[in-house]
């Protein structure tokens, strides 16, 4: 679904590369191919550089108008692919890099990654020792490379999603998308709840929708009414072991992160929209 929205935003002159992840399977086994664009599968840690290689070839052949997109999971981005991603970002490669983040290694059966949030169950962070570290902030890492464009998105906000991909299409240089992608078995939610859970992640400010331009200018795209994180956590089996204390800890962390983000928005724009104030106080 996220892929459909992305391609809606990018049009049809797109070539993609996908590393080892759930999408290795989703596109279909040989000789099937579900996507309507040329696709090169690549090794787990190489999405960013494989896309850069395709880009280089298209550039020497004078096909600069073709968009090259890497589409990778959180493991392939936050962990094993980070080195190649950092290289591509630092060189400001003219590609779009999308990480669809389901917060664990799902392809191999739900192991923790550095995108797994504090408190979550996975098969390598069992309930007795759930994830003890906060999720790695990949957007800040990408912003630190001062790339022209980085944005978050989720399928629960399709208009925002497509608008951002349309915008990104016309920017030259490294463009990065962080997409929160609920995974029903991994998050222990019913499949028909995916969109609702994604929406709740935004409404609780666990996953804010925002853009960072040139690594510095921050714009929050959606000002949530502000609901307690408990509403988000309790929808998912992977968090059901959490104590009130742990939930409070998460709440404080989320509030703090949100304040930082709002501050950056204010720094960028000089002021805050009216709806902002409410988000800073309400829970």
């Amino acid at each position, binding site marked *: 679904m996220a892929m459909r929205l992305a391609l809606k935003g990018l049009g*049809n*002159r797109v*070539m993609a*590369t996908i590393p080892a992840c759930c999408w*290795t*399977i989703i*596109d*279909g*086994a*040989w*000789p*099937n*191919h579900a*996507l*309507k*664009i*040329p*696709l*090169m*599968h*690549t*090794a787990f*840690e*190489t999405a960013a*550089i*494989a*896309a*850069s*290689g*395709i*880009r*280089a*070839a*298209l*550039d*020497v*052949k004078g096909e600069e108008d*073709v968009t090259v997109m890497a589409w990778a999971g959180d493991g392939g981005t936050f962990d094993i692919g980070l*080195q*190649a991603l*950092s*290289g591509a970002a*630092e*060189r400001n490669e003219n590609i779009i890099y999308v990480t669809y983040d389901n917060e664990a290694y799902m392809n191999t059966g739900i192991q923790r990654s550095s995108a797994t949030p504090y408190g979550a169950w996975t098969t390598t962070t069992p309930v007795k020792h759930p994830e003890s570290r906060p999720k790695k902030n990949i957007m800040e890492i990408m912003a630190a490379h001062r790339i022209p464009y980085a944005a978050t998105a989720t399928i629960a906000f399709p208009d925002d999603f497509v608008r951002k991909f349309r915008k990104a299409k016309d920017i030259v240089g490294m463009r990065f998308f962080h997409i929160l992608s609920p995974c029903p078995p991994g998050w222990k939610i019913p499949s028909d709840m995916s969109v609702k859970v994604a929406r709740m992640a935004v409404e609780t400010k666990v996953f804010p929708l925002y853009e960072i331009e040139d690594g510095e200018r921050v714009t929050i795209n959606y000002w949530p009414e502000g609901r307690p994180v408990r509403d988000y956590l309790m929808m998912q089996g992977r968090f059901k072991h959490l104590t009130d204390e742990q939930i409070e800890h998460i709440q404080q962390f989320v509030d703090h992160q949100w304040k930082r983000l709002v501050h950056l928005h204010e720094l960028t724009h000089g002021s805050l929209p009216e709806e902002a104030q409410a988000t800073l106080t309400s829970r």
Partner: protein
Amino acid sequence: MKLLENSTYTVLKGNHAVSVGAKLARVEVISAYPITPQTTIVELLSEMVASGELRARFITVESEHSAMAGCIGASLAGARAFTATSAQGLALMHEMLHWAAGARAPIVMANVNRAMAPPWSIWTEQTDSLSQRDTGWMQIYNESNQEALDSVILAYKVAEQVRVPAMIVLDAFILSHTSEPVEVYPQEVVDAYLPPYENPNALNLEHPHAIGSLADPNVYMEFRYKLQKAHEEALRVFKEEGQRFKEYFGRAYDTLEAFYLDDADYVLVTAGSMTSTAKYTVAQLREKGEKVGILKIRLFRPFPFEDVRNALRGRKKVAVIDRNISFGHSGIFYSEIKSALYRDSGAPPVFGYIAGLGGRDVRPNDIVEIYEDLKQREEPAEPILWKGVRV
């Protein structure tokens, strides 16, 4: 060919001969990472790209793993791709070497042989390239700077016909940093020999297809069968193109090279720059009436079984001198040569000498001693006869 009159002889280091070969081959994407003793290959290419002398994109990647992954992306998107590396860098690429061959990306890479760490060494040894032997790459070993330049052009010519990547291999320092006169061909002649790269299976917007998708047990094996068949085809094409090379450039190349071999009772098998020392020594031994010759291995993958058998059949004894080792086994060329001779009637006894690891000099005197040892040796011998080890 008449055009060759415009060739120029230039004094080039081995590394720069490779860069010039890549330039003449009109590589379009270079994706590379520095490592001694390879670095000056890509430095010169980077200058050529910067000055506009070579129309190509140079990707300054953050690792060798990415260097190879970038080449694969470029090659599968329709560009002629090149990189170069050594030792640790080659080992780091290992996963992507399998990937390049499996994805049938006809990349050409130069590997400057360097001993693997630890302990750290920057000097020559072939274990780095030979331990990549099962990745599906062609491997061409070079004795001189001219051969290195020529091999780049020849490698693209063969690789692109059979869609198998090719590694051209040269020794650290002995070739990479040593200057020799090298004939640099006019661009028109190279263009006439090596047409622009076209990959009918490249990523294509008009006919979108997926490259490298999951293959279940019902289909995977056929992919591997085809890669093996491509290697078998590569052997034929390599021999054919090696001969055609002479029509264009005045030099012919084969899978092996013979030196004083015709009437030789004793044969020394070598690869790489050590061959030159062996040639010098054998020429002297010949003057003394010794019936000794050299078989130089140029093409290691695909392995020229037939040529090796024909070259060694009926000899009295063979010494394979390996500047490499497969621990727990023996020298790698040694075991490969023996496998080629298995049950060949008339196959001579073969002895495996290991010499020159980590760049230790192999001097004419060492070659003489190996030859003397060979003459008096009886089978069976240990799988490794060490030459020059201080224990």
